[in-house]
């Protein structure tokens, strides 16, 4: 169908000139499924909607103290040096980006005056540049005016390799130029459909004051006194910082958003563990908010009974998955295991991969482990909503798996383990050490055994599993096992970075010191084509369709077996109204937090 025709039909539905059912019927007639048609409809609206605010207070301040409990306390307050989200969270109390993400994954303006779009002319139609208009009259906490110079400086600071900023990946390929004091233009080397990465969100977007950091760029970056005493534009001013222990701030009376912030002061306490943090918020009410409460649901339900707080969930796109190795981890070629030159002896048979995915009992995993913090899913890509495929299904069925293996010629041997051509169905299943993961391993192993697959469980300390240590054989990129389970957070409401990891050209090999991101070493030309096309596709409808196609290809090939779509879990006092987005850091929307009297 012609794109123009589709557009005009979407327009008709929007204006009420065509009824929704008729549209879906027309779509079905050309071979599109009903859910896909519905999705296309949803996508036809404004590409990047502005998030709505639920903020109620009508005056600034008066809310008393806000006590936050981060069981891993921030250890530094320069967002461009953050080694983890905790540091971004801490820095974000004081520094601000141009815009952030609300719970629905929509953009919310912070230091920017309007959302760039092709309609208002700020976004180039070819996707090669974006212009940001800054809010006028914003001041740094020390009274100096905030201007376009600060953005240009932040870009220069982060892209300088000598600075050793962790955000260099976002800034090194772009060009930022000042148009006037309140306008900057970002130029991309190629069409960039997701243009809201630099200067947006808490992860990489926090803007530094030029007048305080100018002398500390490059190799002198570590000497900057402001690394530990931030001067930002945010709702709270910095008072005190003790690494890993405490951050204190007080209200910024000159804050640039009306009636905000609500609290007069804030405190972020670090240390301890998740369970006792849940207790301090939910049961005793010593704290107002507890971060990242990864605690078994049973425990949380018990604490919530008659407690002073409750758990709060935010839906993002984090997927706990089991990845299948497409290369052979047990054969060494040119001094390299899991080499691209090999094929996995068992998984080269698609029936084995399919059977394996039938043996993951997601419902039990949810019931026994994740509870309210998980959703079962068949998809690898679980958000934002417009990118989620509705074409996939999952099932837990041991008999069906057994029959599938039987039909493919895998017959049970004397020991009950299936084999074919002398190859036994024995696999090694590795993951990082973490309570829920070990329990999931046990559930999967049990089902596999019933179907005649022997599973050996292996668990690796998280600091090793996720490390980039080239000398260590147990890291996830080396993948010296048959299957492995973990999650890679989707840190922005766009799948491009996330999906680009699995391009055939990005395979993790000895040659690139296992820095390649495609650790399953899966090769699929259609996938590569879809991702490459999506990377430069400016039409949001077509782009979403490409990512949905990419996700479906992964599903068809069983590259990943999605175990759980995980939600963010936080604890909050009953009267606190936190705004938590699954697409942003917990403190990204802090200016909208308040307490219900």
């Amino acid at each position: 169908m012609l794109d123009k025709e589709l557009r005009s039909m979407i327009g008709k539905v929007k204006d009420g000139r065509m009824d929704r059912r008729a549209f879906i019927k027309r779509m079905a007639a050309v071979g599109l499924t009903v859910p896909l048609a519905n999705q296309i409809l949803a996508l036809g609206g404004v590409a990047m909607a502005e998030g709505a605010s639920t903020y109620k207070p009508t005056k600034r301040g008066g809310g008393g103290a806000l006590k936050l409990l981060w069981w891993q306390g921030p250890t530094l307050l320069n967002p461009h040096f953050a080694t983890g989200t905790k540091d971004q969270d801490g820095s974000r109390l004081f520094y601000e980006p141009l815009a952030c993400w609300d719970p629905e994954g929509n953009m919310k303006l912070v230091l920017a005056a309007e959302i760039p779009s092709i309609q208002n002319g700020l976004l180039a139609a070819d996707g090669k540049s974006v212009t940001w208009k800054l809010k006028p009259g914003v001041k740094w906490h020390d009274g100096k005016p905030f201007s376009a110079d600060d953005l240009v400086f932040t870009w220069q600071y982060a892209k300088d390799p000598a600075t050793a900023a962790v955000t260099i990946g976002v800034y090194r390929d772009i060009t930022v130029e000042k148009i006037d004091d309140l306008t900057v233009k970002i130029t991309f080397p190629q069409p960039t459909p997701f243009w809201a990465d630099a200067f947006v969100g808490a992860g990489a977007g926090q803007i530094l004051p030029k007048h305080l950091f100018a002398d500390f760029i490059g190799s002198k970056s570590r000497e900057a006194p402001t690394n530990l005493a931030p001067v930002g534009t945010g709702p709270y001013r910095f008072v005190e910082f003790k690494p890993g222990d405490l951050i204190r701030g007080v209200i910024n009376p000159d804050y640039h958003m009306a009636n905000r912030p609500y609290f007069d002061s804030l405190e972020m306490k670090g240390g301890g563990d998740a369970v006792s943090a849940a207790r301090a918020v939910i049961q005793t009410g010593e704290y107002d908010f507890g971060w990242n409460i990864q605690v078994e649901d049973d425990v949380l339900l018990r604490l919530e009974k008659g407690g002073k707080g409750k758990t709060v969930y935010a839906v993002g796109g984090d997927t706990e998955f089991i990845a299948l190795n497409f290369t052979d981890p047990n054969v060494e070629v040119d001094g390299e295991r899991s080499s691209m030159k090999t094929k996995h002896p068992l998984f080269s048979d698609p029936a084995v991969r399919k059977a394996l995915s039938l043996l993951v009992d997601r419902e039990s995993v949810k019931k026994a482990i994740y509870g309210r913090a998980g959703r079962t899913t068949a998809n690898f890509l679980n958000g934002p909503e417009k990118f989620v495929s509705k074409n996939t299904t999952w099932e837990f069925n041991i008999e069906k798996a057994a029959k599938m293996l039987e039909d493919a010629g895998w017959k049970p041997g004397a020991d009950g383990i299936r084999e074919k051509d002398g190859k036994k169905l024995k696999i090694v299943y590795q993951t990082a050490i973490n309570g829920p993961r070990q329990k999931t391993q046990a559930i999967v192993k049990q089902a596999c055994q019933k179907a005649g697959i022997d599973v050996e469980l292996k668990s690796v300390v998280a600091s090793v599993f996720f490390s980039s240590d080239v000398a260590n054989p147990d890291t996830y990129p080396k993948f010296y096992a048959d299957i492995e389970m973990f999650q890679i957070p989707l840190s922005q409401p766009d799948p491009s970075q996330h999906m680009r990891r699995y391009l055939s050209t990005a395979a993790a090999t000895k040659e690139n010191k296992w820095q390649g991101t495609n650790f399953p070493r899966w090769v699929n030309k259609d996938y590569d084509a879809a991702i490459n096309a999506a990377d430069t596709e400016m039409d949001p409808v077509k782009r979403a369709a490409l990512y949905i196609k990419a996700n479906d290809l992964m599903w068809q090939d069983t590259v990943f077996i999605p175990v759980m779509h995980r939600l963010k879990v936080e604890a909050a006092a009953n009267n606190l109204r936190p705004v938590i987005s699954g697409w942003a850091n917990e403190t990204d929307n802090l200016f909208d937090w308040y307490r219900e009297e």
Partner: protein
Amino acid sequence: MSQYVLRRLLIAIPSLLGISAVLFFVLALAPGDPFSELATNPNVPPEVQAALRAKFGLDDPIHLRYLHWLNAMLHGDWGFSFVSRMDVDTLIFQRLPTTLYVIGSAQILALLIAIPVGVYAATKPYSLFDQIANTLAFVGFSLPTFFTGILFILIFSVTLDWLPFVYTTDIKGRGIHWLLETIRQAIMPVAVLGLFQAASMTRFVRSAMLDVIRLDYVTTARAKGIGQRRVIIKHVMRNAMIPVVTLIALQIPAVFGGAIVTEQIFRIPGIGSLLISSILSNDTPVVMAVTFVFACLVVLFNLIADVLYGWLDPRISLR
């Protein structure tokens, strides 16, 4: 005497060098990487991670890194934290006061309980008081602090709601209110640690006293008609204290080193929690500095204990 101290100090140098080498190589061999959390962040390309490793010298050969560290340490540079990107000594001195206050108070509490109870129990062995003290001491050191800590929290914070269980270094208010709050929030951790220490120390004091109390010179002193009080304090205790002094001297470095478990449970921002969080995040310079300083303190207090022997018992000559 001064010659003895000097000789001991000289001997300490090679042993400290040895300790530092072992610590450094063990830490370097331990798997993991301070930038591991970056690995799952898709915003951070792997080559950035590799560049960071190179910048912080993590890819250099181990022996070079050790010499580098040793040289810096000799110049008073304790290193630079990967995770906090600040000097390690600042980090440590920021946390030292809290540890000294909490762990120091716990040690004092332990001594205040252990010495009188131990001495009194030894003067009346197998009496009812001795039996009770012994039983309690046995129970006390059999219960680990992570258990008693959580038990205390459940009783005094959750059920009774008397005491806070999150230690905060930032208490609002001034003067008497500040002082009371500081004491109030330290009650639980000090009690947990102090009682645990007191339990083992009581048994130690009691047995040391029993060893001495049966000696002939004590009987002689009593025969001379010296009162019980003076015999115990002047004649028995002074001699019985030699092993106890060793024990206490070796505990003092622990006052600086913090208590890992208790600090973690009560969120006390001390050296112990710094150590454990640094270990978990593979922040080697901090781990190295904390453990090495701890080693130095152990060596130093060993020497002090030896010198104290000479003062407590003039028969021991230090040559």
